[in-house]
Every structure is written in structure tokens, then in C-alpha cells.
């Protein structure tokens, strides 16, 4: 197994900063936004985006967290049932712009499940998608609005994201093959 680093901690910080500028630019500010992080690593990313937006725009954008386990369609029938973690959407999302945040966009099935879940919480004016890594191989017609880095990969490869808040190590993104 070989591991190649594709983003360093500094790269991630810069990518998050750029995504923040793009989010603010695209939406003419951040007043009507809600950030929703997809568990697990989408959550710290959404929190970082909120902190950076507070710096840039002086507005605290609310952050929700979403566990999509109950909406998934790709769990194997064998093996232990997954633990369902908590979901918390702190504000009514109806009429607001929701920016979904995840670390890696791959088949699109997680995002599909997240869209279904969000639908149960209200009817947002618009949903946008921000990801740190887009590695291709989509199985559904889903695309990201804000991308940290596009990384062409083979299906046999794996993208490993390390975020300090979850992994208790230095930030980094790696290709493992």
C-alpha cells in the first residue's frame, strides 16, 4: 500500500479560504446561508467555513450536522448495522440557501442521501454543494458548486482525508493505492 499526499494542512486552509470567497461571491454575501456538514468530516469543514466566513464577512452563518445513514442506499446487507449518529439542523432551512459540505465527492450517493434528508427538514430556496476533493466517478447526475481540488483517481484508489478535529492528527489529504 502506498500513500501519496495531495494536500497539506496549508493547502487545505487555502482551499477553504477560496471556497469561502466563492460562496460569498456566488450568493451576494452570506446573510441567507446555512451550512450543513455531512458526517463525519463534512462537519469540521463546515465549521471551518463558518469561522472563515465570520472573518471575511463579519456574519456568523449557522452550521448544521447531518447523519445520512438512515437515507443510504449503498449499505451491504451483511455485516453489522451502522450506528446512527445524531443530526442537528439549528434553523429552519425553508427559504434559505443551504450549502452542503463534505470532504470527498465520489459516486454522489452520499449527496443524494443528504438531499433526501434535507428535504425532510424544509424547502430551501437553493442547495449548493461544497467539497474539499472531487475525485470523479459519479454514478448520479450530481456536481459540486465549490471544489477545493479536483483529483483524477482510479476506482481502486482511496482518498483519505485527515482533519485535526476528527482524526487528532495534522490535516492532510492522501491518495492510498
Amino acid at each position, binding site marked *: 500500500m502506498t500513500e501519496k499526499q495531495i494536500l497539506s494542512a496549508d493547502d487545505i486552509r487555502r482551499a477553504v479560504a477560496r471556497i469561502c470567497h466563492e460562496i460569498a461571491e456566488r450568493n451576494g454575501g452570506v446573510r441567507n446561508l446555512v451550512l450543513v456538514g455531512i458526517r463525519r468530516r463534512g462537519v469540521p469543514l463546515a465549521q471551518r467555513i463558518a469561522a472563515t466566513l465570520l472573518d471575511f464577512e463579519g456574519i456568523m452563518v449557522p452550521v448544521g450536522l447531518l447523519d445520512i445513514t*438512515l437515507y443510504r442506499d449503498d*449499505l451491504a446487507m451483511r455485516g*453489522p*448495522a451502522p450506528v*446512527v*449518529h*445524531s*443530526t442537528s439542523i439549528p434553523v429552519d432551512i425553508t427559504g434559505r440557501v443551504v450549502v452542503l459540505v463534505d470532504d470527498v465527492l465520489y459516486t454522489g450517493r452520499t449527496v443524494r442521501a443528504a438531499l433526501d434528508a434535507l428535504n425532510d427538514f424544509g424547502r430551501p430556496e437553493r442547495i449548493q454543494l461544497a467539497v474539499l476533493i472531487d475525485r470523479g466517478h459519479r454514478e448520479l447526475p450530481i456536481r459540486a458548486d465549490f471544489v477545493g481540488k479536483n483529483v483524477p483517481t482510479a476506482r481502486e484508489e482511496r482518498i483519505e482525508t485527515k482533519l485535526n478535529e476528527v482524526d487528532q492528527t495534522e490535516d492532510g489529504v492522501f491518495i492510498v493505492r
Partner: protein
Amino acid sequence: MTSTSTRRRHVLDLDDFSQAEITEVIETTASMKEVLGRSIKQVPALRSKTVVNMFFEESTRTRISFELAAKALSANVVTMSAKGSSVEKGESLLDTMRTLQALGADLIVMRHGEAGAPYYLAEHFNGSVINAGDGRHAHPTQALLDLFTIHERLGQIEGLKVVIVGDILHSRVARSNIWGLTIMGAQVTLCAPPTLLGPPGFWLATWPSLIITSDLAAALAGADVVMTLRLQNERQQAGLLPSLREYSRLFGISAARMALAAPHAIVMHPGPINEGVEIMPDVASSAQSVITDQVTNGVAVRMALLYRLAGG
């Protein structure tokens, strides 16, 4: 994230649960409770699964709670009771089960007056079985909702002093709770008149850490949780009690008795309540009472279990 334990097929009692698995069920229950607090109280997790509630004994809260839990997970749910079914024509349990299997049942929730009936079903049924109460033997989903409620209110279970008071000898709720509480590391005291307690050795043989007493005041001193049980009228008719009034005076949980427990103590009851017998009305509706939380949490716990067996 997947769970630490292997996939479970049935929930028959808590004796085969580890501390880790109960902790996972409690965590999943909290997530299910969040679903029940949404304006759309339904997730697609068990879409296309068929859950059959087979109730051979009367029940309000358990039956409705399982129905609501299955519906909140988008399962197809059918409830059958012995009354009005072919059971009245003499159809055997096995034949009834085979019929349900042929009709596509994935999961059977069963309440039965005979201890062991769900085990018999689990031996023959292709899908999963959840025991919703079998005779005097076990009621694992009640115990899990009690554990969740204790954890929700007090933040932990390990190390808590829990007193179970009442008709312990005839109670499946008590038995499953003793399993669950001891697995989770609580210190459990059983307190009842000797006729409703049986010989201490009967309990100690399985659970050596139990404290067994008929001295209610001593049992309640410093307790974190007071778990009361329903006293069934037929116990008095069977000569196990001189009178309900005497029972109530000696073992009923009153405000004065609750004052012996810790200030933060909670009082529980699995329902249905005989107010004024095992628990006084003012205690049942006091701030220390978690009786309605138990009912509410019952739906979330059953969602967690249905998902654990049939989901993913």
C-alpha cells in the same frame, strides 16, 4: 461508521447483549429521537421491509409504540392479535408463523403469555424476531427504553444505585432490567415483600452482585433511580398479599419515601399504573417522574432495534 459488535438477528432478552452493544443502542436511540422531533417524522431506512406485530396478549403502549416505530422507518407494518385471527380456529404458532413468512414478513414482533414463545419462533422463522414480552420471562425493549431514559436523565448508568420495587417475582420487566442494569454496571437492589420476591438465592445464583431486601427505607437511602412495577390484582387474590391497602402503605412510593433517595433521583414505572398502590399520584406526576419520557422514548428505542435488525 459501523458498529463494534457483529450483526444481531434477534432481540429475545438482554442476556446476550454486551455493554458496547447497549451503548450503541442508546446512541442510535438518541438519533431516532431527533427524527421523531422533526416536522416530518419519517425516514426511509426500512422502506419495503415488512414488520408483523403478533400480539397474543393485550397491550397498549408496547403495541402502538412498535407500530409507530416501524412506520417512522417507512416499513410496512401489520398488527395481528390472537383475537380475530385463525389462532382462534386452533392454528398453531408454527403454522401462523409460516403463513406470515409466506406473506413476506421480514421481522416479527411478538408478545406472548408463555415464557419462551419468541425463542421457539426465532428457531423456525427465516427473519428476525423481537420479544415484546413473554410470560414472566423477559421484556427486553422495555428494559432498553428504561436504560435510555436513565442515561438521558442522569448522563450515565454505570455506578448508579437503582432500586427495583414491587412485584419482582412475576415481572418480566424486572428480569430484563436486571440484565441490562448489571451489564451496564449499575448497583441494583431488589425490594419487595418476601412473597413477591422469592428466595434470595434464586436471584443471586444468576446475579451475585444484587442486593435483596424487604426493607424499603434502607433500599431507598441514597438511590439514584427508583423503578416501580405494576402490582397485578390477581396477586392479592392468590393470597400473596393481605390487602392492596397494606401493600400500598408498606411498599407504595410516596413523596416521603422519595425524599429518602438522592435529591436528583428519578422514579420510573413501565405502566399501566395502579395509582395509589405501587406509586402515589403526586409522585407519578412530580418533576422526579420520568414515566411519560419512558413512553415517548419507547418509540425511539424500538426504531433503533428495528433498524439494527433489519436496516442497512
